[in-house]
């Protein structure tokens, strides 16, 4: 398999790398080290730039107005977009647009008008409401939020936790159990407006990260018209699975991008930092850390691009995406940890982005399915069937 970049890919990678280094990083020099947003005027200015670059709406299919960029190239660009302080959870502060998990391409025309198109235009934001206090690793069985039909409406009751962006969202993609079936076959996906009576964001769930913090939601007798069912009744879990599988590739790419940047910092630093009369670069202990970093980065990057390539060819990429997510998140954690070690005391400070990446990278081994679930997904695909 040849991962030599095409001329066009190299040009796009160089353009995005330059954009991150000349437009994003200087803004961060004046922000709090944990900041999650840039000033609205900077955001608008940079969005105008990404439109001119032809890259606004990356990830949105061309038929919906996005740029015609394949998954492999998107992945290469995701490596670059993550290479700044807030890059793991807010790559380039979202100035490249995109729909995130709200890619409602199977929506009805009415749903597209009301929800999808405003998201694509950047006018509305959404949340993805899957995980519940009863558990997130096996959501198909853990979902206890209930939907009961009442005439032409559905009445929803329940709770969701670790939901990013629900406090800012205009609507959400919310999963509820709508039959007596206790498995994933009894789950339906609803589009819910956050200004409807019965929708409550009860609290911020403070975690290791400040950016795009999680929230806890309570749903009390939330009345949703049946027109707001996304897809088919009792077949909502397939929608969740599809989103999560697709999202694993950019999720892994973010981790790998941060690892690449951390490695660059380490290599720069060991060439100037002296101890006991010699550069750190001359110490074998340090050299091995740099080499271990590179092996972590290259193996995870290779698998991530393999998953992207399979997605581009229309092949089943679930195993590769799960592998990329597992490898990327775990490799990213190891790399950042080693780079902090190389930087010594400064590596622990908020003067450098490393401590933020360290905290946020730890979440990546849990978020969007922990490493153990990724192994389970791979085992299921490799051995076949649902055996647990």
């Amino acid at each position: 398999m040849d991962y030599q970049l095409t001329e066009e890919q190299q040009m796009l990678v160089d353009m995005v790398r330059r954009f991150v280094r000349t437009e994003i990083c200087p803004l961060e020099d004046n922000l709090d080290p944990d900041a999650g947003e840039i000033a609205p005027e900077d955001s608008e200015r940079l969005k105008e730039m990404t439109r001119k670059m032809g890259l606004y709406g990356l990830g949105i299919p061309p038929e919906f107005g996005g740029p015609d960029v394949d998954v492999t190239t998107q992945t290469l660009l995701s490596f670059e977009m993550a290479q700044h302080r807030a890059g793991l959870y807010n790559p380039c502060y979202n100035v490249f647009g995109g729909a995130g998990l709200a890619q409602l391409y199977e929506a009805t025309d009415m749903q597209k008008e009301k929800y999808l198109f405003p998201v694509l235009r950047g006018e509305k934001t959404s949340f993805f409401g899957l995980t519940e206090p009863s558990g997130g690793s096996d959501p198909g069985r853990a979902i206890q939020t209930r939907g009961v039909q009442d005439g032409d409406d559905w009445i929803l009751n329940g709770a969701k936790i670790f939901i990013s962006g629900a406090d800012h969202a205009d609507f959400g993609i919310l999963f509820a159990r709508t039959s007596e079936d206790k498995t994933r076959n009894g789950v339906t996906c609803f589009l819910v407006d956050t200004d409807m009576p019965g929708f409550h964001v009860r609290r911020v769930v403070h975690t290791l990260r400040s950016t795009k913090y999680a929230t806890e939601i309570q749903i009390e007798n939330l009345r949703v018209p049946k027109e707001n069912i996304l897809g088919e009744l009792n077949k909502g879990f397939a929608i969740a699975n599809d989103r999560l599988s697709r999202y694993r590739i950019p999720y892994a790419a973010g981790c790998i991008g941060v690892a690449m940047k951390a490695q660059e910092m380490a290599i720069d630093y060991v060439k100037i930092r002296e101890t006991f009369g010699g550069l750190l670069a001359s110490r074998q202990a340090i050299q091995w850390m740099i080499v271990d970093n590179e092996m972590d980065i290259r193996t995870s990057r290779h698998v991530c691009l393999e998953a992207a390539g399979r997605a581009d060819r229309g092949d089943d990429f679930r195993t590769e995406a799960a592998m990329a997510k597992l490898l990327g998140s775990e490799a990213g954690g190891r790399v950042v940890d080693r780079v902090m070690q190389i930087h010594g005391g400064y590596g622990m400070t908020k003067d450098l982005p490393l401590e933020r990446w360290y905290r946020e990278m730890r979440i990546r081994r849990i978020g969007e399915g922990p490493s153990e679930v990724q192994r389970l997904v791979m085992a299921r695909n490799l051995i076949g069937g649902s055996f647990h």
Partner: protein
Amino acid sequence: MSIRLEKPFQALTSENLVPIQGQLGVYQLADANGDIFYIGYAGGRSLFGLHGELTREMEEQGDGTQFRCEVNQQYISRYEELLMLHKHDFGNLPERVLSEYPYKIGVLSPGN
């Protein structure tokens, strides 16, 4: 656990700032009646953390100003939570916060 800052206010004086150290965290300022007129945080760029920020506030504010604070490593998400709570409880953000905070504020309905 309450998500609101419920410690009693103290007068914003140099004596009361002695035990406040250079940690990261959030704070609220209130007038003599206890009406909150500012919510802020001591972040990664604050010199001397909460102590530094509150000392600066003491020098800028008039007599009768009160404060309360909370040491918190997750000062950004806690700060935003306090803003949302204030908006929920009082209908809007304090004027000075409005002039400093250019972002869309989230909606929280925490119950009582």
